């Protein structure tokens, strides 16, 4: 009889949708690990990966909307997802608090993504069994 140990994972995505395969590889992996009975602690978007959190992503109707696909998965599995605030602000991804703080005309972060600092990533390195990085070249 094979006994498997349940592990907890944090996925770090640093490649943008539509310019890299990182978000779709990460989503396939996330679905597989949950299906296998492991726990997905959180998803952390870093660098160009924060573009995944833009609710303004509008691909052609015959292409998958990766932001929407990720949002649905995160809500179904109740997984926290964080966009690094420094990476996000630099690339024009804002929540309503940052919109107000920087007096910008709009916010555009998709639900259920939230913004937080690298401290969340550091905490993940201490608490998750595994950290996997999905890079622009993946």
């Amino acid at each position, binding site marked *: 009889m094979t006994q498997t140990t349940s592990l907890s994972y944090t996925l770090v995505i640093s490649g943008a949708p539509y310019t890299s395969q990182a978000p779709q590889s990460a989503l396939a992996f996330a679905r597989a690990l949950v299906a296998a009975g492991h726990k997905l602690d959180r998803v952390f978007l870093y660098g160009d990966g924060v573009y995944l959190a833009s609710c303004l992503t509008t691909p052609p109707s015959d292409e998958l909307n990766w932001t929407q696909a990720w949002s649905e998965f995160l809500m179904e599995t109740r997984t926290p997802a964080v966009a690094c605030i420094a990476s996000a602000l630099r690339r024009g991804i804002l929540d309503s608090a940052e919109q107000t703080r920087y007096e910008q005309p709009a916010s555009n972060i998709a639900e259920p993504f939230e913004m937080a600092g690298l401290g969340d990533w550091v905490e993940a*390195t201490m608490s998750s069994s595994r*950290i996997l990085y999905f890079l622009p070249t993946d």
Partner: protein
Amino acid sequence: MNTLIVIDSLPYGDWRGREALDMAFSLAAFDRPVTLLFRSAGVNWLRPGQAADQLHQKSVERNLSAATVFGVSTLIADKAALRQYRLPSDQLPEAACETDLTPAFYQQFDSVVAL
């Protein structure tokens, strides 16, 4: 957990290196052991006399000089890349040292992050 953060891209071509450096500083801020490795074109981060203002960017030299203040005690440069980019070891910042990148080098670390 002892983490190696790798910078392997030119200092002003994209933001990957700066964002890797932010990761190193964040680990150090939480008292996590962290080492910075400069390899491939990334060794140019260590080149003195950069004129970043001509590119309207902040100098990475200044960022790196803060590394020890933030608690990143070890900066390591790939010896082969230093030769390739003609960067003599006596021109490296005081906190930097050079090494050969062998499997044994990487095996010292629990985690290696290369954006």
